[in-house]
């Protein structure tokens, strides 16, 4: 064992001990390591802040605390400046990490305060739940904080997170308007860009799209040709515009067939949105979500014809101007995130089983890969976990949450997906400390966090207006 490796191992052990001894959920990064992947050598990766009035600034965090605010060094300013938290919208830490965990997360935990965690369920009892995450080790909380657990059949496997630079992508030949800036792929004209993701049987491609001009973006899934359109090979193409999503199959020898189209109403007057495009080979299903709302649900009745393993993005308009960021490519188990209105929620827990049954009752416990369930709160049954897709916990037990108005209430978004909200205490060296109403004291390594949102209640109000920075109609700040 080399000295470096030994040091790293020792460091990991110390971190783990710190995690255990402190009683907090300090990140056990050494066990569930996130290893930084350097970007282009020589290209400084700066952090960025976004303010609620639409201002954006690159720079570096020199200090962060709930009391003192954010101290910022701008590269073009000679002095450090401290912002109070009242007008902060977002701090992008631009962590270039690759999530590596010894055990693949197989659950998506949704909490009643909006927190979302991918991890593994260790145990669930009448009062408490224990789970394990790569970024925070073991987390314990009261069961009433849980809104839903989705059991991911094939696990939650992060295939890619980025973009991290332009060199990891293949650009179309000739004139190509794609560029890389601020952890985003940007384009102001036509062009194709793509790469191999090693896709096999499913994909969930998520990305933020921000546009200044109307866009026509085509996303080709399961292709092996990344730098142009190629109809000699089977693939699936989604055409996205602010008004429509159109879905086509490309099949050699057969040609191209439009399999469906959906009108988009939710993007009127907006300039950014988060897209999620999902494909599943076994069921030949394809789903498009925009801002977590299902927009299109398609199926290829001829079966899944594509054989490639990559994805390409193509801008169709010479006058386009848009950016792709926060790309996350994961596998998809083919199940939908059931909308709560689909389930008749009340005082009982609802199980969603693989055979589509939805028994109601009370989940007594989950241990040893089986669930003890009190059917209609009368009859105790025990089910193997592989039969359960999801548990929706009854609402009456759920903790009511105070309106999150205090500026120091932040939401951290972790590399690989998932987010936690907590009251920000301080950033000390590389450790971000806070206190969660769900999990109590928290401590994370800052390099496990991609971005931190501030003033959570104002996000939805100001997020889209941020594009109109020079036309601020409020006297703000």
């Amino acid at each position, binding site marked *: 064992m080399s000295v470096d490796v030994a040091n790293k191992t020792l460091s990991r052990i110390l971190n783990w001990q710190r995690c255990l001894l402190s009683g907090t959920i300090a990140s056990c990064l050494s066990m569930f390591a996130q290893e930084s992947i350097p970007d282009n050598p020589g290209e400084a990766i700066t952090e960025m802040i976004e303010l609620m009035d639409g201002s954006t600034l690159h720079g570096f965090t020199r200090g962060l605390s709930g009391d003192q605010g954010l101290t910022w060094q701008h590269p073009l*300013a000679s002095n450090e400046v401290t*912002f109070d938290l009242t007008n902060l919208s977002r701090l992008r830490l631009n962590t270039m990490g690759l999530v590596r965990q010894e055990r693949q997360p197989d659950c998506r935990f949704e909490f009643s305060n909006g927190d979302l965690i991918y991890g593994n369920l260790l145990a669930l009892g009448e009062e408490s739940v224990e789970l394990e995450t790569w970024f925070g080790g073991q987390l314990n909380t009261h069961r009433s904080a849980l809104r839903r657990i989705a059991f991911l059949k094939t696990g939650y496997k992060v295939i890619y997170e980025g973009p991290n630079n332009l060199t990891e992508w293949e650009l179309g030949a000739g004139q190509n308007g794609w560029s890389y800036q601020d952890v985003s792929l940007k384009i102001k004209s036509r062009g194709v860009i793509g790469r191999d993701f090693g896709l096999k049987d499913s994909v969930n491609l998520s990305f933020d799209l921000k546009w200044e001009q109307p866009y026509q973006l085509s996303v080709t899934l399961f292709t092996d040709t990344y730098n142009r359109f190629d109809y000699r090979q089977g693939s699936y193409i989604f055409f996205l515009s602010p008004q429509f999503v*159109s879905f086509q199959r490309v099949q050699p020898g057969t040609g191209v067939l439009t399999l469906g*189209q959906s009108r988009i109403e939710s993007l*009127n007057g907006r300039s950014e949105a988060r897209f999620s495009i999902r494909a599943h080979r076994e069921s030949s299903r394809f789903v498009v979500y925009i801002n977590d709302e299902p927009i299109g649900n398609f199926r290829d009745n001829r079966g899944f014809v594509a054989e490639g393993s990559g994805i390409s993005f193509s801008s169709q308009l010479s*006058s386009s101007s848009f950016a792709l960021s926060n790309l996350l490519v994961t596998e998809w188990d083919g199940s939908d995130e059931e909308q709560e209105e689909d389930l008749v929620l009340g005082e009982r827990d609802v199980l969603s089983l693989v055979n589509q049954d939805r028994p109601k009752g009370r989940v007594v416990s989950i241990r040893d890969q089986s669930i003890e369930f009190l059917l209609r709160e009368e009859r105790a049954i025990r089910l193997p976990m592989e039969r359960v897709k999801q548990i929706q916990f009854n609402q009456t037990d759920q903790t009511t949450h105070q309106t999150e108005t205090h500026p120091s209430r932040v939401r951290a978004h972790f590399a690989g997906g998932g987010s936690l909200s907590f009251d920000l205490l301080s950033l000390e060296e590389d450790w971000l400390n806070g206190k969660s109403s769900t999990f109590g004291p928290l401590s994370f390594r800052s390099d496990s966090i991609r971005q931190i949102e501030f003033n959570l209640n104002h996000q939805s109000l100001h997020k889209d207006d941020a594009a109109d920075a020079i036309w601020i*109609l409020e006297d703000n700040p």
Partner: protein
Amino acid sequence: MQSGFWKTTLNLVHFLFLSSLVALSQESSQPDTDSLGLVADPLPSEPVIRPITVDTIHLSNGDQLSGNLVQFDFPGITLWDRKDIQTPFAFDSSAIEEIRLGDRPAQQSAWVPSITLRMSNGDQVSGRLEHLSETTLQLATHYGKNLSLPADQIQWAVMHHDDQGILYAGPTGLQGWTMGEVNTAQLEGGQWAYRNGAFYATKAASIARMIGMPDRMQMEFDLEWKGSLNIAVALYTDYLQPVSLAEKDSEPDFGGFYSLQLTSYAVNVLMVKQKEPLQYLGMTQTPVFRQGQRAHVDVRTNKADHSISLLVNGILIKRWVDQGGFAGEGNGIRLVHQGQGSVRLSNLKLKPWDGRFESPPTNRVQSKTDLLTLRNGDKLVGRVSQATQSAVEFMIGETATQTPWERVEKIEWGGVSDTLRPLKQGEARAHLLGGDQLTINLQRIQGHQLHFTSPFYGESALEIRCFERLDFKEQPNIAPQTTNAPKP
């Protein structure tokens, strides 16, 4: 490489996209809740109408920051303050690309310039001519100072005449305008806001007023947009509320009008009458709307020949003729933002039109003579020798003629080469309220004063309240106009 097959596919998608835009680009194409027999939503709350006291700075690394300009020194630093920071930023002044200045008191004035001059470096200066000699032109400006301009660097001058009977010039506020209610099932309604000599809309919004439109009319305005452009201008309307075109027959009674629809993808004129089918007079496109972010729009109407003409940046885009006769029954205008993107509308001016398309002034760099164009269309070739407040002396051969300014349309000087070039370090293109722009070496901004030097204008200090924007780097979309389209 795109095959024919792919082109077909993409064209299909493009067609669908365009179709959706046409559907949406009507004044208010979606049925509103009222028309469905439901209770309409209340009128959207008015935006807070307060002066924009914030300035915005754009830096060379792409950052932008709102706040307040405290002091600028070049060379040196720029102090930039905000309410949420403890000490001001001290930015390197050479790293600034643009400063947009917020409202400052008493920006609007009733001062009307009588002449607009174009300089060889692309500057455009408006004011009142005091005196012209062989070497200098003395110009009184609303900036508060008289400027002394080098006469040999003036390329052209366009006169503005009071007797043209301006029907409306503004906006100067919301007074006299009627806010409309844009309430559709699909669009979030908002309202136009007035700021700093301009109307702004970031959501679907309508504003209208009766103006007393003559049979022949010229309407001009400046448009600036972010995101997609999608605005409808109703001409000769008698109804101050937006009309849902899809449900027009169930709207309250209104007279016929024309809807000029300006979008990123198409320009259209619709004839709109109740109980009659919508009539599209024809669609065209302009790359300015598709690729740009600002334009000078000039609309000419003529009831006698049932025509509506559109000029964008001085270029005639299309002339529509309604073969069924002129359908406009009112004398008002209505501006309806469709909700996509956001838009700024300024320098709106309506006046009678003589029915003649004037040729825009040109730079006669190859000519050794000057050209004086009279308002009656006559053209005189010779030399401008001097001018006073009341008349210009023009030499035709050896003969001097005195022509009162009220008879002059424009003067185009000969042999004045373009000296327009990209800005150098330390130079700024200063954009003033009203559309003028000056190229200056900006030295300091402190308090209310902006101190500069210029080879054209010498050393001077002007009131910062007169300025809208300072560009330190040429930007493609806002480069000085080269279309020779004056914006009086």
